């Protein structure tokens, strides 16, 4: 083998003298090995039969539709139901209150059904079909003459409620762009979360409450009615400690 190498080497040198170019430069190539992280284990994950979001009706099946009062309190304050994960791994959580109408719901359904791979991921609704009737008077009508006719139906969503859930054999990075695309178009501020990130969010909130260095907290001042401040505040503020104003959530409040 070395005799062969010798002849090739000499051959190269001879050729270099003749041509005088830099073609005979040998290169030492070193090989290494890249180690990859182990892919996640999806052996326990069971995909449901219908992985896509089901179609939601624009109008509920009433024999007789009744007009309802405005009842804006269904937007106000934090969500008490459906604020944790049920079956999925990743989802959209509402960070403010608002009404979802059929257009929003269709947008969500179509985008997600188009973007997910039904063999590996499934999606589930966490909001009801629109049930609250919203009335509108005709164009150019004067005040009075009774309540308007039912125009459309909406679903009220409170702050902290889960809107959608996604799960299956997928990672957060795959799912995040799909959900952010949807979350941006919702009528209230929404955030894409996974189980871990949602738990971390709540944990951080509790920690902030505990390690607050300010001796004066909203709860302390208002519950003891210092300086008669309850004159300018509502019982809602007492209940929610100044974190919510109407349908908005004030993020920096502890």
């Amino acid at each position: 083998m070395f005799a062969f190498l010798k002849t090739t080497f000499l051959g190269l040198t001879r050729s270099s003298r003749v041509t005088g170019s830099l073609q005979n430069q040998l290169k030492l190539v070193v090989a290494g090995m890249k180690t990859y992280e182990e892919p996640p284990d999806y052996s326990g994950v069971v995909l449901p039969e219908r992985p896509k979001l089901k179609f939601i009706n624009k109008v509920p099946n009433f024999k007789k539709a009744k007009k309802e009062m405005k009842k804006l309190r269904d937007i106000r304050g934090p969500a008490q139901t459906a604020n944790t994960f049920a079956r999925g791994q990743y989802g959209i959580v509402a960070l403010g209150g608002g009404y979802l109408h059929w257009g929003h719901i269709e947008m969500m359904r179509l985008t997600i059904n188009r973007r997910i791979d039904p063999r590996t991921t499934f999606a589930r609704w966490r909001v009801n079909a629109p049930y609250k009737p919203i009335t509108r008077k005709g164009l150019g009508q004067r005040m009075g003459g009774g309540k308007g006719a039912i125009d459309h139906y909406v679903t009220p969503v409170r702050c902290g409620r889960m809107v959608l859930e996604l799960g299956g054999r997928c990672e957060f990075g795959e799912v995040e762009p799909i959900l952010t695309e949807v979350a941006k178009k919702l009528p209230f501020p929404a955030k894409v979360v996974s189980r871990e990130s949602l738990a971390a969010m709540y944990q951080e909130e509790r920690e902030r409450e505990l390690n607050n260095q300010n001796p004066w907290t909203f709860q302390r001042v208002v519950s003891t009615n210092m300086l008669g401040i309850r004159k300018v505040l509502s019982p809602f503020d007492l209940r929610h400690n100044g974190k919510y104003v109407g349908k908005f959530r004030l993020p920096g409040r502890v």
Partner: protein
Amino acid sequence: MATTLCSRAVQKLGWLPCTQSVRHGSKSVTRHRKPVHFLKQKLMALTQYIPPQPAVSERCIIPPSKQVQEESGLTRLLKREVEALFRDNKMVAVFQNNAVTAEDMLQLKHRLMKHGIAVKFYPNQVARSYLSDSKYSNLLPLFIGQNVLLVSREPKVKEMLQTLRTMPHIILLGACVEDALLSRQGVLNYSKLPSLAVIQGEVVGGLSLMTSQTASLLQHHPLQLSRLLQQYVKQQSEGDGGETEGAEAQ
């Protein structure tokens, strides 16, 4: 939000203020951000979150955590190879190579292979991790920077140094010859030593010096031997006379 004037009865159950503001422009839940009452603004400003601030910041005290990386399969393989290397080869020399071209390296390998010396390259990380656990831990300072290992089953230091005389950019750092760690000077001294047979011969010669001398004496001519003995007797008698004179003088 309707205006109410509370009665005494209500005060007993839950506390509501006696008077409530009458002015209300909009409902409590609005699409826009409602203008906040000045007193409420003051309250919100007073009750803001103040984060904890330790006297010395965390960054000054807590050292940055070092991530311990798991050994990959390749490093484990290389480690086993290094182990076998130290086990099988009697001579392991560490050299520093400064920008040796591929052609020079090829020639060097060819020349060394004639004497049975192999040229080995191993990553420093692997070598260091092996040496720190083994008995050769004193070789650790050598494995910094670019280095080459020249190994052979038999310790052929002289041939190795001769071959490398023409390459001044391959510098000897140290060696481990037959489980003895040698520095650069030590290796040079080792190379100057004669072969084992010669040394053994010298030792044997030194031991049998007296017997060989007597053997050569006895092999002289008998006339010379008798003259030697006469001289010896004369010396002895002179010596005795001198002693007795010395004793008498005292």
